[in-house]
């Protein structure tokens, strides 16, 4: 693996990108509150997240060849100073998060107007930026404790964002409360894990921890740390038995929030899982194999089947999509459990592809809810015909969710099954295919409601205004584009997977 030696003291603007893309949204949040005018607030939020997105793209361009950037905050060299470390894996996730964050904002302007009381609008944008900051920080930092801090920044703002759906349905409040309890337990577990790791190694820099674990081998403290970290992050990632908070939170949150969260929050948590499992704990870590096979595979399979099965019987479209998210997380985890380069790249590419797909679907539902007020299927009858562009975007994303060839979802599924074959796991390959049949069933139910049932008499629904429509169409286009051009997504994912499998060596200085 080629590495680029980066100067300890950042000299040019470009050298500061790793921290700037976190700091800019962070600073914009209090500014937005001070401004107090919702139009200006929106503009500022848009500008900040777009800047972060451009920076993430620049970062990815720098590290796509397998190198990494090590940025030392304040010029303090690690392991004492806090290090931001960007490689192909987190650059890709950064791009996903800031990209979705940017693209949802134009949509949010109208949708927030319709769903949230006026006096909360500036706060909404401030929290949105804080959430973005948290997610970006979590992904870009190379310091273990920093992950926790950013995790809490994003979580706390997420709880409030979910609770803002209370104007539509009061259950948003209890959903946010449940999420808060579960999220806090998860984050605390994660901190316990970090504490144990610190006890065992005496450092908090991820690369440094990795080196020490590699040197001194494993012991019970390290194993306990691993268990706590996996459970804690599993909670945030809605890993199957720990997914309880997700359906309500996604269902009752405002549409724009759901779209943003579904595409980014769980993905960031999975990124952290990946980072800790592979870069901090060595993949050769014997204890880890045991966990992966024994814990991840059965639970992922359960997620794929049970959650999809539950999704089939929902009468609320948003809720159905939420359960489908849990099932899709199963695919990502099973890719990790394969423990080979192809499987890891499948998980990583699925993070991106599924993020785009789900964001499109939730945006589409949100646009329909603007007219129908609820996302129950019987209120959505025939809306696909009345809202042709929204409907088309949802069809493209729905097909991608199933994994029809020519869509992004197909690529992830192809790579995932290929990985199963590489390991000789027939059973898993067939299970993946069978569970995507369930996806066919629930997605098709959506299509039938949107297209094959007659719209209600006097239905006046039309496509939403352009600022809402364009983000949807861009994302729907991306669902199809990434089904054909995989250079960016799968290419980066492959590089990232190689880096992860190199284990602590991938993190070495």
């Amino acid at each position, binding site marked *: 693996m080629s590495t680029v030696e980066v100067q300890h003291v950042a000299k040019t603007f470009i050298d500061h990108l790793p921290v700037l893309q976190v700091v800019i949204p962070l600073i914009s949040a209090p500014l937005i509150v001070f401004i107090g005018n919702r139009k200006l607030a929106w503009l500022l939020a848009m500008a900040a997240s777009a800047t972060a997105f451009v920076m993430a793209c620049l970062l990815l361009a720098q590290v796509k060849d397998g190198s990494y950037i090590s940025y030392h905050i304040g010029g303090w060299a690690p392991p004492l100073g806090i290090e931001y470390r960007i490689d192909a894996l987190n650059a890709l996730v950064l791009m996903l998060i800031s990209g979705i964050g940017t693209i949802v904002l134009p949509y949010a302007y109208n949708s927030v107007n319709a769903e949230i009381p006026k006096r909360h609008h500036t706060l909404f944008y401030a929290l949105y930026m804080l959430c973005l900051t948290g997610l970006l920080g979590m992904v870009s930092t190379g310091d273990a*404790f920093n992950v*926790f*801090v950013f995790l*809490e920044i994003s979580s*706390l703002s997420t*709880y*409030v964002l979910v*609770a803002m759906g*209370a104007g539509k349905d*009061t*259950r948003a*409040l*209890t959903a*946010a*409360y449940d999420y*808060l*309890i579960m999220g*806090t*337990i998860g*984050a*605390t577990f994660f*901190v*316990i894990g970090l*504490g144990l790791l*610190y*006890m065992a190694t005496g450092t*908090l820099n991820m690369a440094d921890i990795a080196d020490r674990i590699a040197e001194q081998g494993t012991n019970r403290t390290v194993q306990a740390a691993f268990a706590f970290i996996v459970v804690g992050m599993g909670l945030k990632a809605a890993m199957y038995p720990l997914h309880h908070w997700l359906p309500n939170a996604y269902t009752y949150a405002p549409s724009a929030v759901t779209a943003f969260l579904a595409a980014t929050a769980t993905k960031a948590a999975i990124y952290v899982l990946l980072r800790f499992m592979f870069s901090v704990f060595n993949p050769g870590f014997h204890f880890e194999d045991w966990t992966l096979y024994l814990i991840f595979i059965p639970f992922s399979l359960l997620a794929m089947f049970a959650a999809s099965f539950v999704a*089939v*019987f929902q*009468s*609320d479209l948003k809720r159905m999509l939420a359960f489908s998210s849990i099932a899709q997380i199963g695919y990502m985890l099973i890719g990790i459990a394969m423990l080979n380069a192809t499987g890891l790249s499948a998980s990583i590419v699925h993070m991106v592809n599924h993020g785009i797909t789900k964001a499109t679907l939730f945006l589409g539902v949100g646009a329909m809810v603007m007219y129908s007020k*609820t996302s*129950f*299927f*019987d*209120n959505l009858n025939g809306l696909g015909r009345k809202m042709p562009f929204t409907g088309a975007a949802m069809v493209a994303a729905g097909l991608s969710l199933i994994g029809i060839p020519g869509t992004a979802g197909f690529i992830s599924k192809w790579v995932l099954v290929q990985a199963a074959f590489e390991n000789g796991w027939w059973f898993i390959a067939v299970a993946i295919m069978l569970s995507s049949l369930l996806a066919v*069933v629930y997605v098709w*139910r959506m299509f*039938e*409601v949107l297209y094959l049932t007659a719209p209600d008499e006097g239905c006046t629904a039309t496509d939403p205004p352009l600022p809402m429509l364009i983000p949807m169409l861009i994302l729907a286009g991306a669902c199809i584009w990434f089904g054909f051009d995989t250079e960016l997504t799968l290419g980066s994912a492959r590089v990232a997977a190689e880096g992860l499998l190199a284990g602590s060596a991938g993190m070495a200085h």
Partner: protein
Amino acid sequence: MERLSDWAFIVGHLNYWMFIILMMTGLYIVVARGNLVKKIVGLNIFQTSVFMLYISIGKVTGGTAPIYPVDMQGNLQVDPSIVYSNPLPHVLILTAIVVGIATTSLALALIIRIREVYETIEEDDILKIERELSAKDYKEHGPAMGGRA
């Protein structure tokens, strides 16, 4: 002899025992109590246990507070013979405490809103109300989907 070393093990890890007891107490309260505020109290105890864990692992036997003595002119008087405790976990936990406070205040704010809407903060009552809401939803929207699944 054997018994003695067992005792030494148990007493020597007293801080961990406290950590575990507090942690389990906290978790139990979160799970078992129906009152939303009490749940938050449980959550606080749970978090506090972690603070204790961190603070206790910073302790170095015979160590003192990690502050370098300074003479009247403001110059450092470094004495290598003095043992200091590890300050890092303490600093870290300051952050965690702040996060904990933020979480608590947010949770309490949510509870106030819940109380305004549901007029109760007992989980059982809230669940009952929500079940009724869901049953209403189902009655209204569910059967329409009956044949489709």
